[in-house]
């Protein structure tokens, strides 16, 4: 036993010694000391999953830019979608920062919180920035600074209903739900008639509260205020809906993309806010269900807005050696002409107003369901509001809110208790970040 004690003691000493040595190896943040170079400039440009299908397009952009800027070389790196935030983090921590990075807006707050990004409004002229939709810029603005150049996105949400299930439930598929109350009412009737089918996967989250015009934060963003009687009443609708099958039993699952009941397996009849790419997914995975799908306008809350959940952006890390040139390249990639060319290759939506005015978006024949969806999306672009609150630890706080709502739906907490607990967590975090 004595030998064990001495061995453990020796291990601890070694651990502390090596730990201290290893700590010395952690690279210092060189964000404030960008590398300088006198020769031709090389910009490292990261994209997400574009090499396989859009290599020619991106290479074309790069060649055009290099031709117009002979002193600049672009090194293109394509990164798998789910790894970009981790790879960027590792690159920044290792002091090997790329210059222009394609980042999903949902991943943006993480890097803004770490003070890792250069505000682009300090690098580009106001006229350049005015080319982008103001409502998209607003969602990328943190503490009054625009932290990313908006690029492409999947477009505003659309709604979808399964006409076959609607008819079987005795509902008129030509009268899809126009608002949340109707959607929950339709869902309840559908589940009453068809016991193995639920209404929808609508979950009481922050985004829906915003759409309903319910305040989330105090005007100075220092306090969470979502536990008023109006908020309680709003969440109570979902608790009732959960009990009656108006929303699915699996809606409490954490991974949205793999909820057990969905449109594809016909266990859900209504999707109130869906990305149009889901339409193509259903067509591919469940062609028989696709035949029954009717595309509808997305559900608008009482605030009359359509939240937009995530857009692709281009950011310039603070540690970039050439932030001005990097921002200029980002402006080039996201120019109205280049975005239009990209939109013609794949069903995406642009971030520049001028692109959306092109006949490609305004004058097209509606032949398919995808065309119908596109028409709805173009017309609702002006009602879109970016789904970000612009606070520190936003994703963590939203996750904490969702977790409380899961507990409420499962009956582990009352609505008031769940909201109070979430407000408490938010306020603790908001107080720390001030």
């Amino acid at each position, binding site marked *: 036993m004595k030998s064990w004690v001495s061995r453990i003691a020796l291990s601890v000493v070694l651990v*502390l010694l090596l730990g201290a040595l290893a*700590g010395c190896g*952690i690279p210092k*943040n060189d964000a404030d000391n960008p590398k300088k170079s006198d020769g031709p400039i090389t910009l490292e440009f990261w994209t997400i999953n574009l090499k396989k299908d859009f290599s020619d397009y991106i290479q074309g952009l790069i060649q055009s830019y290099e031709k117009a800027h002979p002193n600049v070389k672009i090194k293109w790196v394509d990164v798998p979608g789910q790894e970009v935030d981790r790879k960027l983090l590792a690159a920044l921590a290792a002091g090997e920062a790329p210059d222009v990075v394609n980042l999903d807006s949902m991943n943006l707050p993480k890097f803004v919180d770490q003070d890792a990004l250069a505000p682009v409004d300090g690098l580009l002229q106001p006229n350049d920035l005015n080319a982008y939709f103001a409502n998209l810029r607003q969602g990328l603005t943190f503490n009054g600074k625009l932290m990313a150049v908006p690029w492409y996105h999947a477009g505003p949400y659309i709604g979808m209903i399964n006409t076959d299930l609607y008819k079987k439930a005795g509902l008129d598929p030509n009268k899809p739900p126009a608002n949340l109350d109707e959607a929950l009412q339709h869902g309840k009737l559908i589940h009453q008639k068809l016991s193995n089918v639920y209404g929808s996967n609508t979950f009481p989250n922050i985004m829906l509260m915003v759409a309903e015009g319910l305040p989330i934060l105090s005007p100075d963003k220092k306090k969470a205020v979502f536990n008023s009687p109006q908020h309680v009443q709003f969440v109570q609708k979902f608790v009732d809906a959960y009990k009656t099958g108006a929303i699915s039993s*699996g809606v409490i699952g*954490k991974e949205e993309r793999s909820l057990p009941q969905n449109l594809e397996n016909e266990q859900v009849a209504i999707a109130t806010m869906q990305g149009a790419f889901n339409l193509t997914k259903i067509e591919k995975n469940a062609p028989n269900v696709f035949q029954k799908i009717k595309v509808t306008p997305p559900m608008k809350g009482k605030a009359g807005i359509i939240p937009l959940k995530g857009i692709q952006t281009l950011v310039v890390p603070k540690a970039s050696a050439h932030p001005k040139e990097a921002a200029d390249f980002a402006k080039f990639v996201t120019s109205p002409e280049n975005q239009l060319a990209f939109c013609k290759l794949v069903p995406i939506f642009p971030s520049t107003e001028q692109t959306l005015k092109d006949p490609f978006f305004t004058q097209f024949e509606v032949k398919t369901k995808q065309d119908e969806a596109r028409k709805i999306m173009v017309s609702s672009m002006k009602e879109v509001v970016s789904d970000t609150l612009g606070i520190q630890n936003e994703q963590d706080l939203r996750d904490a809110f969702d977790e409380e709502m899961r507990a409420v739906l499962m009956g582990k907490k009352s609505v008031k208790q769940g909201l109070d607990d979430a407000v408490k967590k938010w306020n603790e975090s908001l107080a720390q970040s001030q």
Partner: protein
Amino acid sequence: MSMPTPTQPVPQSQVPPRPRTRLGLRRFPWVPYLFLLPGVAFFVIFDYIPAFNALYLSFTKYHVLSPPEWVGLENYHDMLNDPSFWKALKNSFAYMVIMVPMLVVIPLFLAILVNQKLKGIHLFRVAYYLPVVTSMVTVSITWNYLYHESGLLNYLLITLGILSKPISWLLDVNTAIFAVALVESWKSMGFYMIIYLAGLQSVPQDLIEAARVDGANRLRIIWHVIIPMLRPFVALCVVMAGMGSMQVFTSVFMLTQGGPLDSTTNLTYLIYDLAFQKLNMGYASAVGMVLWVILLVLSILNFRLSHGGERMQ
């Protein structure tokens, strides 16, 4: 003892058992250590330095993009007051309580089953071992379908009259941890079966024959001869299953992401969440140290038991 010179004839029986190299181990006794160096270097670089670095980081506030700031025991103090940590610790032990019996008892019977001298028995051995070499991601996706509300498991249980209505196995706080532990155990059973199989094949046949001559039936032979002889293997499996159950991660990540309501979050998943989702590396390292201590205790236990096993041999 003096060594014979090369000119003297050496009888075969007097040749020293250790082979001599051209370098001559006696002149260069450090040569064997050179052969150990690559392995040692690998361990130091990829195992020990990161582990010791984690210990250092556990005393710091570190969010990756700025240098670590020394905070002493603050992370450990926060941990003691963090309900998420206590829940994860409790769940880690819950996995152990659920998985260890499954990984110790069932593989033993599987091993006895596949130790029969039957035609095509190798096929069964392969079949039971196949999940071990299958990717945990693939296994999790498959089990996710089985656990689905309208999946095969619910269908069977309802058809057999065991359930009256389907259960959302992975979305119910009462069942989720059992569902995840079952997937983990199912995947690992073949590995433990192989350990037992090796043990079974080392049981002296004359003992079994003697018991049979004394009139013992098959069950008595298993209970009174085979299982006592396998005691060191059982002990090894208990410790290995304990360590394995402490490190469950992929199935939690794939099936539940720690939910519902953190009911499947264990220390490993909590560390991942803190480090790579919340970028709170310092605190994650502190939680990691707790897991390290638990695993260290289990390793010491494993080491002592395996030594015990050697003595029994």
